[in-house]
């Protein structure tokens, strides 16, 4: 079953067609006409009104200028911080493996916003609800590829079976290495508390350059310790109160 994204940044030409197609298909509103002066990136980052974001990394490589592009997207974590945090059950896992915010249920509590280890989901100020990449759930339902993968002219964004995509990513990294491009790395954080992502990447240089954390952590891993601390504190407070009245 097609259930994953593989963004091969080494094929990306930075055209931003994914950003445009995504906004057009999902009817995402404009979020400001701000020139940033940071290369050609005037989008800034993923957010409530940006579900695909092309990063522009300018650097010097082998003595000359180099420009790396990578189209970032919601990672659709196997164990998703936003999904766990959501108190209304608005955020669900779909049959395609994606993490989906049901817009008719979200009440805009904002807890998912601080629960995403990739800084993806955000609350849209004028709308009040949280938004992020839907994995084009409606298109998936209709047997179509997500809009971004459909329009990508160079097949930098690939959509398909995750295991197949993983094999493709590894093969591509090896092929590049054989060609002398030795700095390409696959981003597929499986050995972390999020248990892997459904959006994997192949990027040149350090994953950090593209805002991909080496060890993304599921925030709920700290719940047990937190609750234990809360219970201890509550007990302590109860004892203090009892002592205060009984002594």
């Amino acid at each position, binding site marked *: 079953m097609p259930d994953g994204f593989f963004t091969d940044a080494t094929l990306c030409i930075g055209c931003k067609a994914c950003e445009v197609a995504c906004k057009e298909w999902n009817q995402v509103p404009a979020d400001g006409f701000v020139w940033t002066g940071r290369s050609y990136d005037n989008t800034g*980052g993923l*957010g409530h009104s940006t579900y695909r974001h092309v990063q522009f990394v300018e650097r010097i490589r082998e003595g000359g200028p180099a420009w790396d592009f990578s189209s970032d997207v919601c990672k659709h974590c196997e164990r998703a*911080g936003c999904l*766990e*945090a*959501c*108190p*209304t*059950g*608005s955020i669900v896992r779909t049959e395609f493996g994606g993490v989906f915010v049901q817009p008719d*249920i*979200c*009440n*805009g*509590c*904002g*807890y998912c*916003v*601080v*629960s*995403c*280890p*990739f*800084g*993806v989901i*955000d*609350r849209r100020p004028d*709308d*009040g*609800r*949280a938004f992020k990449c839907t994995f084009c759930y409606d298109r998936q339902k209709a047997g179509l590829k997500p809009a971004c993968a459909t329009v990508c002219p160079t097949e930098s964004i690939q959509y398909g079976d995750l295991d197949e995509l993983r094999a493709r990513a590894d093969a591509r990294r090896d092929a590049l290495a054989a060609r002398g491009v030795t700095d390409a790395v696959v981003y597929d954080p499986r050995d972390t508390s999020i248990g892997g992502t459904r959006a994997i990447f192949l990027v040149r240089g350090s994953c*950090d350059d593209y*805002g*991909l*954390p080496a060890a*993304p*952590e599921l*925030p*709920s891993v*700290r*719940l047990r*310790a*937190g*609750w234990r*601390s*809360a*219970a*201890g*504190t*509550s007990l*302590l*407070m*109860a004892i*203090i*109160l*009892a*002592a*205060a*009245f009984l*002594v």
Partner: protein
Amino acid sequence: MTSLKAPVWTWEVPAYFFVGGVAGVAAAIACAATLAGGDRATIGAARAIALFGAAVSPLLLISDLGRPGRFLYMLRVFKLRSAMSVGAWTLIVFSGATTAALVYWIAAPAGPIVAAGLIVTDLVAATTGLVLATYTGVLLGATVLPVWAERHRTLPIDFGVSSLGAAASAVELVAGTTEAMVRVALAAAAIKTVFWLVSLARREPAVNRTISRATLLAGPLALGLRLAGLAWAPAHAAAALAALVGSGLSRFGWIEAGRADAASMRQ
């Protein structure tokens, strides 16, 4: 570097953290005082504060929601994995128990069933109240922002103890100084002071100025004033004010810290 999102919460959320915490501990005070046969003024004040908090807290929460009309969607599901969900349910139960307890308390002379009801609702309100005072620390700790996440163990203690001091102070300011409340406030201020001294000794950098000020107010200053109050009673009122302001300030300080944390990653 990953650019994490800043909390979208407005002033209502830290205000709720404070009000809810104070109300929660106030309910516990009411329960303890009732069981221990404390003076009626203290019990009445504690119940009033708890009820006030139980009424205001949902309003604050609702007003912060992006879609306030959908507050009740919080009750579609109960999720242990979501501190927000646990907190919402806790608040609901707390509000109900506090309200019921007040009714029972007023009707207490009516007989043994009512008396038993009072004890049960008081215990429920006290338990959920203490959760209310501490879960907000769990909630912040179980997020991705390092400034919160790194303190996921201490935040519940910090929030709980700060609510303890603030609740005792609030009851005291309404009902007059009692020995029991002074003891509670002293304990809270002392614990805060110990934490403060430990962080000084460890040379931990201040999270931000708001939190530093809040700590000074609710910790060493409140403690000092309480000790002074043993000799000169009016100092108690000042100590109570310091603890309340410090407690409230600290909640705003922590939200501010989260916002700054996210901003520092978006260079």
